[in-house]
């Protein structure tokens, strides 16, 4: 394995881990639930994405043939992360989980019906 490849893999691994940790720091520090919701939807998806890229590069140059199946994890997370965030936000709105009543949207006061 050449030095450039190793540098690339190392870079993506550390960047990915850093983004994952930043998301967790967000959920540790932020005061209310809706702000905490921003952590896992953004930082962790790109964090895992960068690690998957690192893994794909590593196995492509260090194994048997090209390896791209890590892309599937990234793809899957990019599809599911907004969905689970939306579900959590919806559940929170339904439970009136508001520490800051002034930020309430008027729509959440009425019943929003059975559609999901």
């Amino acid at each position, binding site marked *: 394995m050449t*030095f450039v490849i*190793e*540098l690339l*893999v*190392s*870079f993506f*691994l*550390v960047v*990915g*881990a*850093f983004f*994952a*940790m930043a*998301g*967790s*720091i967000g*959920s*540790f520090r932020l005061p209310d*639930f809706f702000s*905490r*919701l921003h*952590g*896992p939807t953004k930082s*962790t*998806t790109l*964090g*895992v994405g960068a*690690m*998957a890229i*690192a*893994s794909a590069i*590593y*196995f492509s140059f*260090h*194994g048997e043939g090209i*390896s791209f*199946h*890590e892309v*599937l*994890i990234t793809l*899957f*997370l990019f599809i*599911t*992360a907004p*969905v*689970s965030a939306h*579900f*959590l936000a*919806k*559940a*929170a709105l*339904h*439970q009136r*989980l508001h520490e800051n009543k002034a930020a309430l949207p008027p729509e959440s006061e009425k019943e929003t019906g*059975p559609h*999901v």
Partner: protein
Amino acid sequence: MLSIAIPVAFALLTAAQLLNLYRLLKGPTLLDRILALDTMYIDAIAMFILMGVYFHSAVYFEAALIIAVMGFIGTVATSKFLMRGDILE
């Protein structure tokens, strides 16, 4: 280079998991705990990918994919249960 990067990445991810664990234990609401668990799933996927590179084994990929699928279903099922008191309608 890789021998430095992998321990650094492991340390960062472990710190992330500990912060998530704090949020999981502290709450204050049930939804905060679900969110913390969801973040822990995603960080666990990152850890599995890292282990795959560290041990040079493709087996960890399948474990990571299964965690991704199960974590998503778990989050959706629990938040839907909180929303309606029922998972299937």
